């Protein structure tokens, strides 16, 4: 059974600082997703990582995937208040199949303080 763990669950950081959110998963998968959710809103797709060593960057966020370690990281560079949100990783539980059956981590609530 695929399990996905995120840490930390809560992250309070100052503007301008760097930090990393970690996502570990328990069984083989070939794709991993990062989503952002603002309070009371839906989920917004940030990154889809397909292969070992994949790295994607968008603005101050960079995501990477190590399938051998079953670990993905979401690195935040020089945080700004606008990045305050909850971040979820999700791992595809249908290796080799056609549907995206996603197992989500519990989320990391990021609060960027001025």
């Amino acid at each position, binding site marked *: 059974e695929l399990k996905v763990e995120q840490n930390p669950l809560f992250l309070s950081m100052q503007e301008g600082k760097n930090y990393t959110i970690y996502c570990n998963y328990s069984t083989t998968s070939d794709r991993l*997703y990062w989503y952002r959710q603002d309070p009371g809103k*839906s*989920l917004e797709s940030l990154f889809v990582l397909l292969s070992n060593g994949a790295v994607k960057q968008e603005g101050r966020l960079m995501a990477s995937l190590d399938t051998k370690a079953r670990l993905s990281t979401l690195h935040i560079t020089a945080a700004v208040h606008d990045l305050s949100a909850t971040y979820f990783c999700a791992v595809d539980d249908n290796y080799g199949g056609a549907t995206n059956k996603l197992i*989500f981590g519990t989320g990391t609530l990021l609060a960027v303080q001025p």
Partner: protein
Amino acid sequence: DAGITQSPRHKVTETGTPVTLRCHQTENHRYMYWYRQDPGHGLRLIHYSYGVKDTDKGEVSDGYSVSRSKTEDFLLTLESATSSQTSVYFCAISSPRLAGRADTQYFGPGTRLTVL
């Protein structure tokens, strides 16, 4: 925004009553999903559909049923609502997984359901 709507957006009901939530898409995506979101659990898959009249169970399907009679509509029914089904429900859509394609799931705006 992906063309996904959910109705109703908010609902308060009483224990034991039936409830149906609707997800409607205008994107013609083949796959549709229902999730629930609860504090401390992230999102959990309830049911999904891989085509008209083709559905399957997810992680937390007990107490829920689904139907898909048209590509664009995916209904989630709580036959007899319980307080443990108080949650925020999200619908999502996606294309079929293809090797090397970074397709994602697109989520609807959510339905907040309260069962008293």
